[in-house]
């Protein structure tokens, strides 16, 4: 299946992926209106290591996802390789934040959980972080790995 992979050697640490993610999931059509003056809660996080190397972390859509197994609301599920969250069922207990080994499930600022759904539920059509990365440091491709 297609997955998001990171090429840290190309990452500039510009954090654009975080803004593109927040915008893509804002439901708005104007990026400035969507983001200006607001704290963003992106589903992708740029990290920096001790050598100054940067890279973005988002949901790995694990083969054996502990977040899905741990969800106390039955809100997380895996369909066709994509781990989705049913926001109508999530009550904001944040157990998924407690168990995700990669820190990829994030509280959304209003008290409930959110995570990368590969931009399949918004109007983007393809992951916004990948499309918007100015240096090709995040790719979305099929490397023949199992779901």
């Amino acid at each position: 299946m297609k997955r998001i992979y990171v090429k840290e050697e190309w990452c500039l640490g510009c954090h654009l992926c975080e803004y593109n993610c927040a915008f893509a999931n804002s439901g708005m059509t104007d990026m400035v209106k969507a983001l200006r003056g607001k704290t963003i809660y992106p589903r992708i996080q740029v990290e920096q290591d001790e050598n100054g190397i940067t890279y973005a972390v988002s949901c790995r859509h694990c083969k054996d996802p502990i977040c899905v197994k741990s969800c106390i609301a039955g809100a997380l599920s895996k369909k066709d390789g994509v781990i989705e969250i049913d926001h109508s069922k999530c009550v904001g207990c944040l157990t998924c934040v407690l168990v995700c080994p990669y820190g990829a499930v994030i509280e959304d600022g209003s008290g409930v959980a959110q995570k990368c759904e590969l931009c399949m539920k918004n109007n983007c059509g393809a992951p916004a972080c990948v499309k918007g990365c100015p240096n090709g440091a995040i790719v979305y491709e099929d490397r023949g790995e199992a779901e």
Partner: protein
Amino acid sequence: MKKYVIIGNGVAAAGCIEGIRSVDPEGSITVISAEQHPVYCRPLISYYLEQKTDLQRMHYRAESFYADHGAEVLYGRTATEINADTKQIVLDNGDSIAYDALCCCTGSSPFVPPMQGLDTVDNKFSFMTIDDTLALEQAVTPESRVLIIGAGLIGLKCAEGLHSRVKSITVCDLAPRVLSSILDDKCAAMMQKHLEKNGIDFILGTSAKEFCGSHAVMQNGTEVDFDVLVLAVGVRANTAIVKNAGGNVNRGIVVDDACRTSLADIYAAGDCTEYHDISSDTVKVMALMPNAYMQGHTAGVNMAGGEAAFDNAIPMNSIGFFGFHCHTAGSQPEGCEMYEETDENHIRRLFVKDDKLTGFMLLGHMHRTGIYTALIRNQTPLSSVDFARLKIEPQLAAMGNAYRDKVLKGAV
């Protein structure tokens, strides 16, 4: 075709069904459900009272779950006996059901210690099931004064759920602090302060001595008038059916990493079991929903002839009240060191022993906590990561290049 029987219809049972079907698409699955409801999210009953969810959304799985998995549910039935020799169970209506592999997901029941005059109280409730919750909802009015016995997870979630629907809530507990099973004094004090700010009153360090109608007297002499009483002292694992069949039982049904009981072809999963906590290297009852699912799934795979182990269990809790959260995991073994960072609105306490993170308590700021949880679960040597950075913030950057490459450049 193999015959699978599951006693119980909670989340462990759902995990078991999914585990079985991941290996065996054919065998018959029969589920014995004492409750009249399809599997639902038990911890959501407080969110129901709070009107953050409803009965429909509380379903753990889609309406077609049992049909999709070829499972037959016998609602309103309980199993009264297991005959491990003939491999049959007996139901409360006298029917017998044969099994090739059996999983006991019998859960736990509220434990009510003897209290004088409890039988004189009309409006008293447990808080474990949908039916408890609907009955409690019927009993409260905006004028109700509610007394909750038990300041643990169940009692306090009940308090939060009822908060906007009643006049007052008093919570009493024998322990000197709230959430005594998961928080230490300092963390509990911060949580208690937050709960008090939201209008919950506490009487701690004492227990109810006597009830008379709608009047309670505590051991320390405090008197409370109430309209509705909720009993949330604790729970006990439902072990009797396995014990009576000759299986090993302590505080919970004894299971191994494969979720096998001591009896051939009989498995157990969920709140009825006790099992190994790797963070403290002790065996305990960990009545936790994520673990229940993982045990159930493990049992199911093994029942169907596959191979699975749940060999990295730890206690863990994510719980919040009125917008203030805490995350706890693992344990604080004797002789552990504590790293602490704190200010007025948050606490971060990490417990370390023998080069391993054994546990943590975090209050107020829940961001990427699972990175810590994984350190406990994987028993990662702290000398192999940059723990100084991790203390400041959970991050993959501190986990070393090899780990990072594995996670971000491959499928995990």
